[in-house]
């Protein structure tokens, strides 16, 4: 029915898209691991980052890949501020409240973007958007390949940051035992904000990698964030290797269900996996913690 090269190509494409999904999920899982909350504003921040890339390319003529360092810093600052001055103070430390505040934040960000940019879908044009790399009989989009490599590099950097630096140690300490961490002199609110900032910074990278192959409109983040939730749950909430593996897996599942059942049902595979994992194994397929 389907020839092997087509299935192989779909699988490979799924892997490449999955890497970018993984990057989006990475920020989400990091925030969950430390703050133990689901950041519903994650998708809205991604949309904002994608518009930032679009503006940088359209108005300043910057290449999206060149914009990565700059936007990463900007979005780290935005995330830090959001947690320190909005989410933290507004939620009084209650989990249910954090859920609602991030939901409120996502509604605000999305609709301000809608008010400013209107509902139009926008794209950027790059010289390399249609360039391909040949691997045997398979054709791989260059932009997707860059995205894949960058996702792996960023995950590595994040892993290094968490395991090798003092800030990383502090983040892990707060994640494990908040009270103990504050007793040994760690400023918990600062670490919370840093973590949230890091989550947003990974989104900035993801946005730069996404824009050459995708479009942006004020609602685009919603689609990604639902996929990202699935990945985070699948990989075990708070686990970075889990997010990577989960992202690649989901990318392949989406690509293959799309191939076999058509695009309109392509996403349903993801949600069914999501529900099944939540119901049967909420600690995730790769999560060690129960």
């Amino acid at each position, binding site marked *: 029915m389907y020839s092997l090269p087509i299935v192989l190509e779909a699988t490979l494409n799924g892997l490449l898209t999955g890497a970018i999904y993984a990057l989006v999920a990475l920020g989400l899982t990091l925030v969950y691991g430390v703050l133990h909350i689901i950041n519903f504003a994650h998708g809205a921040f991604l949309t904002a980052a994608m518009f930032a890339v679009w503006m940088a390319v359209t108005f300043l003529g910057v290449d999206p890949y060149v914009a990565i360092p700059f936007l990463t810093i900007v979005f780290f600052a935005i995330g830090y501020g959001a947690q320190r001055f909005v989410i933290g103070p507004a939620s009084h430390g209650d989990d249910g409240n954090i859920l609602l*505040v991030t939901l*409120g934040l996502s509604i605000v960000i999305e609709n*301000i973007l809608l008010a400013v940019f209107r509902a139009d879908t926008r794209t950027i044009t790059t010289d390399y958007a249609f360039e391909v790399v040949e691997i045997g009989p398979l054709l791989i989009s260059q932009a997707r390949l860059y995205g894949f490599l960058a996702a792996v590099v960023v995950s590595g950097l994040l892993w290094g940051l968490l395991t090798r630096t003092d800030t990383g140690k502090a983040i892990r300490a707060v994640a494990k035992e908040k009270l103990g961490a504050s007793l040994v002199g760690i400023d918990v609110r600062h670490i919370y904000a840093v973590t949230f900032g890091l989550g947003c910074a990974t989104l900035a990278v993801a946005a730069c990698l996404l824009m050459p192959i995708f479009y942006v409109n004020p609602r685009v983040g919603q689609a990604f964030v639902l996929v990202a939730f699935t990945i985070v749950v699948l990989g075990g909430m708070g686990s970075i290797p889990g997010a990577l593996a989960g992202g690649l897996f989901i990318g392949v599942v989406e690509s293959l269900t799309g191939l076999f059942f058509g695009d309109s049902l392509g996403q349903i595979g993801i949600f069914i996996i999501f529900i099944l994992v939540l119901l049967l194994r909420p600690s995730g397929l790769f999560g060690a913690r129960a």
Partner: protein
Amino acid sequence: MMRTYLPILAIVGLIAAIPFAVTSNTALNFVVFVLIIALGAQGWNLLGGVGGQFSFGHAAFFGTGAYVSAILQVRYGLNAWIAMAAGILLGAAVAWGIGFLSFRAGLRGSYFALVTLAFAEVLRILANAVPITGGAAGLLLKLDIGVLNLQFASRAAFLWLALGCVAAGLVLCRWIMDSRFGAQLVAVRENEDAARALGVDVLAVKLKAITVSGALTAAAGCLYLQYFLYLDANIAYGVWISIEVLLAAMVGGRGLVLGPLVGAFTLHGLGDLTKQFAGGIPGIDLAAYGTVLILVVAFAPGGVLGLLTRLWTRRAAAQPAGGRA
């Protein structure tokens, strides 16, 4: 005993009088829409406000009510009242099913919010793809005015119908909250483990709550269909309705019987005001909703009603004791 129902009677009477004072179609449309949202929000409030289980996917119940009612009328020519009853019943059944799966798996907090969101999305994608729902083209209910068809020539008549449903919902919620089941539900919200230790069957209580909650929100979906006579997957199962009902309940005052009604009026009043000030900028009213949600969580956890009660008691306390003999 009757006194607990007095506030409900007062506010329902007030709204029932609106068509006598206002005849503008825009104003009546506004009230009807707000009442539909308020009814859906009452469903959310029972589970989320009273029971503390935050659902982000009440669209699953709203949409099921609306679609079942629409399919029975359009495809099988059934009477609108029976179709509505079936819609409410199936909405409750879907709610029980989702509740059974997720509560039995022990999901709470963020996990429960996520899984309800996912269920609603699955239903949305399905409704968009299968033929019986009309797919992406949606379902159009034939315009056929008549009480039997639940369609009215005057907006005032529909307003009273919607208000009747809201009133029934309010009485039901008040009665539940004064009952043993209501007390158990609050206990589950405050501390699930402690409630279980005291002998409360937590799973059964949550299931009962989500089923009634689903029925109320499904009723709102049926009313929406009868008023607008059109449905598609993004309306019926869209994220917008899940958020609308959550916002109305939260802003009005979570866990309070009149909270959803007050919240729906406050939010949409505010939304219309913002729209008038900001002109035709899209999304500006929703941005205002989001801001209000954050402000409510930050400064007024009891919502608008909580705030009003606080002001009221403070004024009462400030008055000299002799003045109120």
